[in-house]
């Protein structure tokens, strides 16, 4: 019986690349695709895939919260998180969310097949770049805060994180309400609670928080070209 895989990434071009890579493997089938976390959760519940591959930086619902929601619905889901960064914080959050695989996007062509094979064989897979000490430290010490980690802010609920991401992505409260099938008043209440909990006073603070906590990701432009000096005579 074929191993059925669901792909979730907001870039169709990446999904095409992943599909081409995975379908070369005999006995594997990409049973569906999703372009954001919310669609991934819906499709996973509908299609019951054996493995779900989620990009960490998706709009509407990021990959980590997608993983949390999937496992809340059914703890048997096997999720591989695809990420552009292997920072300690992201690794910890992916493990904490319940991901069983962690692959850097830049290494996906090399590591993703191994990751899916590992999950198929009821093992976990973490990209070789993941620092063994970080992993060991996390597994041994649980949530213990390392020296380098930023002080913890008050914890947001899953719903508050969803709303924070959507607001930080530039949606108005009305748009958030429409996306989540809530009333605008309910969203406004959540928004006030979030701002109060985090002691924030502006949407700018919320955007910075969302970036720092991997709720949204941004790509920085390359550094400006170096100024051209005077031509030698």
């Amino acid at each position, binding site marked *: 019986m074929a191993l059925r895989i669901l792909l979730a990434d907001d870039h169709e*071009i990446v999904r095409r690349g992943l599909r081409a890579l995975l379908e070369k493997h005999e006995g594997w089938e990409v049973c569906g695709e999703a372009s954001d976390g919310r669609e991934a959760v819906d499709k996973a519940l509908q299609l019951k895939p054996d493995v779900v591959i989620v990009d960490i930086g998706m709009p509407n619902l990021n990959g980590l919260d997608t993983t949390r929601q999937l496992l809340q619905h059914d703890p048997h889901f096997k999720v591989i998180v695809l990420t552009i960064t292997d920072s300690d914080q992201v690794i910890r959050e992916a493990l904490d969310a319940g991901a069983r695989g962690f692959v850097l*996007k830049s290494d*996906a*062509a090399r590591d993703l097949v191994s990751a899916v094979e590992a999950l198929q064989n009821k093992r976990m897979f973490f990209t070789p770049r993941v620092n063994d000490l970080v992993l060991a430290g996390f597994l041994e010490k649980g949530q213990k805060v390392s020296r380098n980690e930023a002080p913890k802010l008050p914890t947001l609920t899953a719903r508050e994180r969803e709303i924070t991401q959507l607001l930080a992505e530039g949606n108005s409260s009305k748009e958030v309400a429409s996306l989540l099938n809530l009333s605008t008043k309910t969203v406004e209440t959540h928004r006030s609670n979030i701002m109060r909990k985090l002691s924030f006073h502006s949407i700018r603070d919320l955007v910075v928080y969302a970036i720092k906590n991997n709720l949204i990701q941004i*790509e920085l432009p390359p550094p400006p070209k170096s100024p051209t000096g005077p031509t030698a005579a």
Partner: protein
Amino acid sequence: MTIRILVVDDHPIVRQGLKTLLEGHSGWQVIGEASDGAEALEKAGELNPDVMVLDVTMPRMNGLEACRLLRRQYPDLEILFVTQHDSPQMMREALEAGARGYVVKSNAARDLLAAVEAVSQHRVFTALNERTYPHVS
């Protein structure tokens, strides 16, 4: 019409996706791949492509630097940026560097074929994300 294309992106999985999409078009051929700007320059000399599909943010040499050098060395080569940067400023910089086209990665599956078609005929093709910049696209 046969179009010979070189695909340049630091993520192999993105190159694979672009290649799959481009090779779905009859007569178009992806003749090579490169993972940064410096390699793009080498391969351009070696393979002489008609169109180069180029990322902006890459290690060693970014796409903008590569584009400026390519423009000088290979004036017949048409350059099309496919990038994460959904920004009019970046688009302007890319066109100033000598590119003929600019497509946002999130819309590449929709815009790429039309863009390659246009730049291969020496026409400009630019498309940003309508939701973010409705006045620019």
